[in-house]
């Protein structure tokens, strides 16, 4: 069974620990600008949403990557970035519909989630389970059950 990062935005408190853990594990420093996950907060509503690469099945970034730096791993299903092959053309940044392929001028490279090789730091440091690393089937089942419960509340009384 494959695993995926599941985002539970309703649980996100906007603490940014995921960004700090991500930049530390990838770049060896705390630098939210150098992370593969970003949290957006609406200050008035106090609502936050973490965003990172979704490892699309039909990935636009792979389609436009001329040097084939971006490829799909057939075993894990992840979209992997080979930094040695990357020419820094930023076509993936243009193509990603979610803005999850990031160009960092200071590091002069593309930043994209690699699931930390199977033990994502963002999920490990998330204090509220807003980001969890779970079996993909479990992830969708859990969410489905949550919405099913709302139907139950609406119709069972």
């Amino acid at each position, binding site marked *: 069974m494959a695993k995926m990062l599941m985002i539970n935005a309703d649980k996100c408190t906007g603490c940014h620990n995921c960004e700090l853990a991500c930049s530390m594990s990838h770049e060896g420093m705390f*630098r939210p600008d150098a992370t593969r996950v970003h949290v957006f907060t609406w200050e008035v509503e106090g*609502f936050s949403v973490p965003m990172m690469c979704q490892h699309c099945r039909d990935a636009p970034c792979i389609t436009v990557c001329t040097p084939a730096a971006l490829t799909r791993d057939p075993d894990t299903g992840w979209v992997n970035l080979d930094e040695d092959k990357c020419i820094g053309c930023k076509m993936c940044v243009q193509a990603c519909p979610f803005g999850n392929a990031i160009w960092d001028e200071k590091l002069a490279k593309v930043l994209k989630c690699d699931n930390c090789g199977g033990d994502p730091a963002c999920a490990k440091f998330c204090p509220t389970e807003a980001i969890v690393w779970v079996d993909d089937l479990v992830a969708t089942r859990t969410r489905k059950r949550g919405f099913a419960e709302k139907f139950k509340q609406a119709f069972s009384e």
Partner: protein
Amino acid sequence: MHGWIGKILRVDLSTGKITTEALDPVMARDYIGARGLGTKFMTDEVDPKVDPLSPQNKLIFVPGPLTGTYAPSGGRYNVVTKGALTGAIAAANSGGTWGAEFKFAGYDALIVEGASAKPVYLWIKDAAVELRDAEAIWGKNILDTSDAIRAETDDDAKIACIGKAGENLVLFAAIMNDLHRAAGRSGVGAVMGSKKLKAVAVVGTNGVTTANNAAFEKIVLQARDKIQKHPVGGTGLRLYGTDVLTNILNQIGGYPVKNFQDGYFPTADKLGGETLAKTLLKRPKACFSCIISCGRVTKVTNKKYAGEGEGPEYESSWGFGGDCLIDNLDAVTKANYICNENGMDTITMAATIACAMELYEMGLITKEETGGIAIEWGSAEVMVELTRLTAMGEGFGKKLAMGSYRLAASYGHPELSMSVKKQEIPAYDSRAVQGIGLNFATANCGAAHVRGYTIAPEVLGTPMKVDKDAVDGKPALVILFQNLTAALDSTGGCLFTTFGIGAPEYAGMLSALTGVEYTEAAFMNCGERIWNMERQFNLAAGLTAKDDALPPRLTEEPLKTGASKGSVSRVPEMLPVYYDLRGWDANGVPTPAKLAALGLAQ
């Protein structure tokens, strides 16, 4: 340097000159950051006798070494200055994301000096720093100011700013950041207003490094685990916020009512965190790198008090609530919103209204003065209206803007101000809990619960249970908590993490982060050094042992009802012991031997 950036930003508003300088590593080691480092700059650069609202005062924004890292709940900064309300050293502590963003811009401190002739704001994008005209923004509230500055700078800019209260020099004006977070106490917002500095907007794209990544991660994960397993740090604060304290304090008879005329409020539960969670709460919110998330995102739909924002915290809920004999949570929350939207300290605002209610009851404040408003106990509408008038600088609000001490003194009754060093006492009755009273009396910034929160052992039983009514051993307990807090505040950490961790974890995190070896003893020693430095500043400013006193009501009038009925505060007994244990003489002056031992100049 690791943990620290190694650079200080200095802005002279009188000349417009902007410079940077290196951070002295020895100073960083001994004063850590935030509250400690800011107070060190004040001590070295500012005459303690200056008028707080004069250009000679400085306004210093300082994150700590932990700020910007994933140390649990370690994203805070302090605003250090001579307080407008108190005339004493002020270190107002705030969370949100501003402190971390400022650090990512590449600085350990922002020292603002002088005063501008016309309204300006400071725009910092990494190394690019400029003063910009704020004429068009002057007069705007916190939300509109933040929106307007983002439109002129960057959508993601983090904003620390003042509202109308700071502009009008309300003596308890706060500096607000990220809309809802406040460097709240002592009137730091009035100092900012006196300098005609509307805001500091910042975008930071740099990083913070550690001396040992693996060691830092290990100790941070251990510290997080301890906090998350703690019933208060891990569970209580997220579920119910700080307002969970309402019922707890009320049950022990330590919930001040009617300007501290009593210590028990029969309907307090209507204001408590449990009620808040069931009614107005939308979701918990965290500050930068926080794992606790005590912040309350709330919405009031009741048309009379409609609004949305954050709060109330326990102290705000109590102040606008029980202290004014009000149990209407919608109204209390509305008053909190008004304070947030216009930048005012909720504790002083609320306690000043409670004091005005007593003065009105005595016939000293009259309807002629108030524009027809009957300032009666329990009137929620009046309480909200007085808060609004103060924020807007209108009518009787102009008088309330002085705070309770100057208000009560103007009617010949300064003793009716429930304050120490002119700063209002928060939501814990010193008659019901002996140690906290001694902390209020001796806190260098004026009465404050967050300087030595002995409520933890005396009421909550953590990290150990202590008899709340005992006085034996309390001076030593208060000193321990005050020193620990002074050191902790200086790291950029949050006091609430002490529901889970303490000096060993902080010393460990600092060592792994900075590469400077802090033993537990060295860390506590920094706290004692900072406390004594603050004391020296105050003494030089003209404060004396007479200012280490609670209002006579708390030492002379026993509580009438509730579980602590019959008690008075025994601070006068404890104070000489406290001085002695501090290594101070009978007048509360640190001895030369003590100062020398701490490496402080005389």
